[in-house]
């Protein structure tokens, strides 16, 4: 039913191949478009699900973001990295969805364990691994309770491994602000974990 994503470190691709793919996709090569879609859909989905906590909403947002990505391909500077640009689109789509949802009083908020329910459960493993998985679940449960602007910066840095300048681009903030905002968010996450009875 589901797949596991490769480790974060394995997701990166060289800027050269990225740039070449963008050029080919612009020239109308369907294979290049499909390769781009396969390469970036997964991180886009993960960001969406980490922000929304709901698989179906995250798939819709990812789909819209990928379509937007291909529509605006002509205006993209191929010397820049694709991921921060795509993440900016995903973030905007997520915010659009929230705005629309706020107009519908019938829509319920995601439940508190929505993010943890998306985590892949570990197989039979030593006790130490189980403790680590328990900490992961507590972290994402606490993350679920953070305000969106705190959660997104932690997710961008600690899960997606974006550099500070890429985070600044995605969030539309000065690079000098990234470190202080990230630290404030990490502090708040730690406080939530402690509130939940867990010392990180």
């Amino acid at each position: 039913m589901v797949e596991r994503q490769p480790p974060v470190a394995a997701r990166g691709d060289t800027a050269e191949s990225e740039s070449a793919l963008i050029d080919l996709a612009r020239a109308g090569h369907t294979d290049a478009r499909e390769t781009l879609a396969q390469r970036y859909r997964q991180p886009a989905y993960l960001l969406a699900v980490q922000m929304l906590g709901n698989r179906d909403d995250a798939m819709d947002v990812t789909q819209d973001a990928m379509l937007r990505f291909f529509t605006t391909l002509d205006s993209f500077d191929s010397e820049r990295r694709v991921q921060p640009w795509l993440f900016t689109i995903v973030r905007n789509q997520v915010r659009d969805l929230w705005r629309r949802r706020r107009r519908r009083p019938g829509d319920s908020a995601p439940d508190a364990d929505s993010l943890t329910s998306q985590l892949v459960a570990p197989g039979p493993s030593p006790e130490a691994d189980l403790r680590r998985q328990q900490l992961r679940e507590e972290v994402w449960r606490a993350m679920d309770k953070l305000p969106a602007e705190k959660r997104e910066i932690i997710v961008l840095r600690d899960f997606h491994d974006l550099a500070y300048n890429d985070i600044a681009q995605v969030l539309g903030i000065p690079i000098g602000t990234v470190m202080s905002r990230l630290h404030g968010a990490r502090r708040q996450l730690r406080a939530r974990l402690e509130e939940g009875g867990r010392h990180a």
Partner: protein
Amino acid sequence: MPDACGRTFDEAFLSGYLDQALVQGDEQRVRVHLEDCVSCRALLEDLASVRDATMSSTFDIPRDDEWSEAPRTGTSRLLRGLGWPLVTAWIVVVIGFGLWETWQDADNLFERLLLVGGLSGVSLLLISAFLDRRHAMQTDRYREVRK
């Protein structure tokens, strides 16, 4: 920015240190401070532990074939492009012929009025649906997006 523990830098530098995002001078300042400050060391260890848990998490993801925007093949697009106009033309011809035959076979004015009235009602409903659809398409922000 002096602190109770004697720190001479902003606490956010601890996150910068953790992420290896500080310039050399700042990184050295933080490292030297950490050697003597138990509370900052404990905070850094906490932050590192939470970051490692976040970083090593694995989420369920949809399979490739669950994404509906996967491009259709060229042949499929061509056949679909030909199919819809043919089906539309067939519907128009069949309905038109049926209506013409019914009109011809109608014996009196009442039957003809019944036919015209029903036809007019259906036409108005279709026009209304068409106008709504056209308005929705014109205001769709993603109308230029190609699937």
